[in-house]
């Protein structure tokens, strides 16, 4: 099981290492979103510092949409999805493998963006541990839900327009929770960030489980 997961994840990450789509297109896009927020809000540093948690997570979620597209399109061409089906790997392993690869890419993206907001927005950091753990938990949730909804739309030409409608409402609770936890870690919101971290972890676990179960039904139909 674990070796199958790593096999699929390794495949996706190798493709990424060789094509550098996420690095060369998704990360710059996310940084552009940060810059646009900066100019749209008049580059007022006190405003930016206050709204950093929310702006950061909106930027991550928007960039994640692109990363999900990329992850799904790897299986679209050349009958790759049929190859996966014929490989005899358990659908849950395929799901977890693709999710792990997507999560690894998103984690890199989130860390680059974190550097971006700390430098560009001048956001203060009170609690580094909470900040990093929140990033990990929220990114796992986004990656798991993204992989599931991406698989739902595999092979569909209308994927680019439907994915945001499907995925953004689902990720709304992650944006709420992660922004709150970041608010606590950055000292801009008086709330218990650790309990938000716990709920983010719950979301991530739930979507990993639901995705593993549902992926079987989806692969049959692909």
């Amino acid at each position, binding site marked *: 099981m674990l070796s199958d997961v790593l096999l699929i994840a390794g495949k996706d990450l190798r493709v990424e290492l060789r094509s550098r789509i996420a690095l060369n297109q998704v990360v710059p896009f996310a940084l552009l979103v940060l810059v646009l927020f900066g100019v749209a809000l008049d580059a007022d540093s006190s405003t930016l510092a206050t709204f950093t948690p929310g702006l950061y997570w909106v930027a991550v979620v928007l960039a994640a949409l692109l990363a999900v597209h990329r992850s799904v399109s790897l299986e679209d061409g050349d009958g790759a999805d049929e190859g996966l089906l014929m490989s005899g790997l358990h659908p849950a392993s395929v799901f977890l493998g693709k999710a792990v690869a997507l999560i690894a890419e998103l984690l890199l993206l989130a860390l680059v963006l974190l550097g971006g907001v700390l430098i560009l927005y001048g956001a203060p950091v009170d609690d580094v541990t909470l900040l990093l753990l929140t990033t990990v938990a929220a990114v796992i949730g986004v990656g798991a839900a993204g992989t599931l909804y991406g698989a739902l739309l595999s092979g569909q030409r209308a994927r680019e327009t439907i994915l945001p*409608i499907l995925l953004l409402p689902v990720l709304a*609770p992650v944006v709420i929770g992660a922004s709150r936890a970041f608010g606590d870690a950055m000292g801009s919101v008086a709330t218990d960030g650790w309990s938000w971290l716990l709920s983010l972890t719950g979301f991530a676990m*739930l979507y990993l489980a639901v995705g593993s179960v*549902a992926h079987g039904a989806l692969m049959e139909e692909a």
Partner: protein
Amino acid sequence: MTTTQEAVETGRFDTATGSRTTRMLGWALSIGLIVLLWLAFIATDPDIRIDAASGDEIGQFDAVRLIYVHVPMAIVAYTAFTVTAIGSVMVLLRRSVWWDLVAGASAEIGAVASALTLITGSIWGRPIWNTYWRWDDVRLMTTLVLFMLALGYLAVRRLEGSAESRARRAAIVGILLVINSIIVNRSVEWWASQTLHQQSTITDAAIEDLTLFTFMYAIVFGLAGYVWLLIKGFRVAWLERQNERFGLVEALEQRRAEAERTDAVNAAVDTGTGDQS
């Protein structure tokens, strides 16, 4: 309703969605609507109370009449999405076409009802809360996100691919509809940790008898309307499905007829060369 097989054999297709029962239900609902309008606008009084301390008139005045639309629509929306979720489970368990069409028809009604819930609620909120929208209200946020999730579900139903493939994809989204709305509900409740929203008004003893009757009547009317629309929506979907399948049957028959003609011509060329020799 005739099945595709019967329709192809007899050449008779259903062209309407009505039956004796739905026509009677439709007429009953039309009369019921007139009664509801009379109850809501004429028979019941506006909500005006006298403040004991100052002697001023307080209350919701005519805005209270909106609950006769708002609450039934909210109940219809949540009922409809529950039916969609149940249908989705049945699709995955039994590959049931019937439940797939019911789930789809129900979600369409749910989307409209949740939109109407949000619109009527906003109109009511303007005079009573002095704002159209509140971000920290858990019921508003849950209904809004549920409405958006329903739009996504309906988009998945319109995907390309075979009917069965669409049904399975939609069923997974349909089940997640419930899971996601529970997550949103919990997280907003925790986030906002307060609500301005009216608590359930039914237990309020101050509510007048006729107002209470109208309120209950409106809920029953809304649910009956839901059933009527669900039957109609199901039949439209069923006819669409029949049309899709019959289209294929007809095309196959035309190709076969073509092949038979070609065979006959070939046979004539091969054997019937009498006039050429």
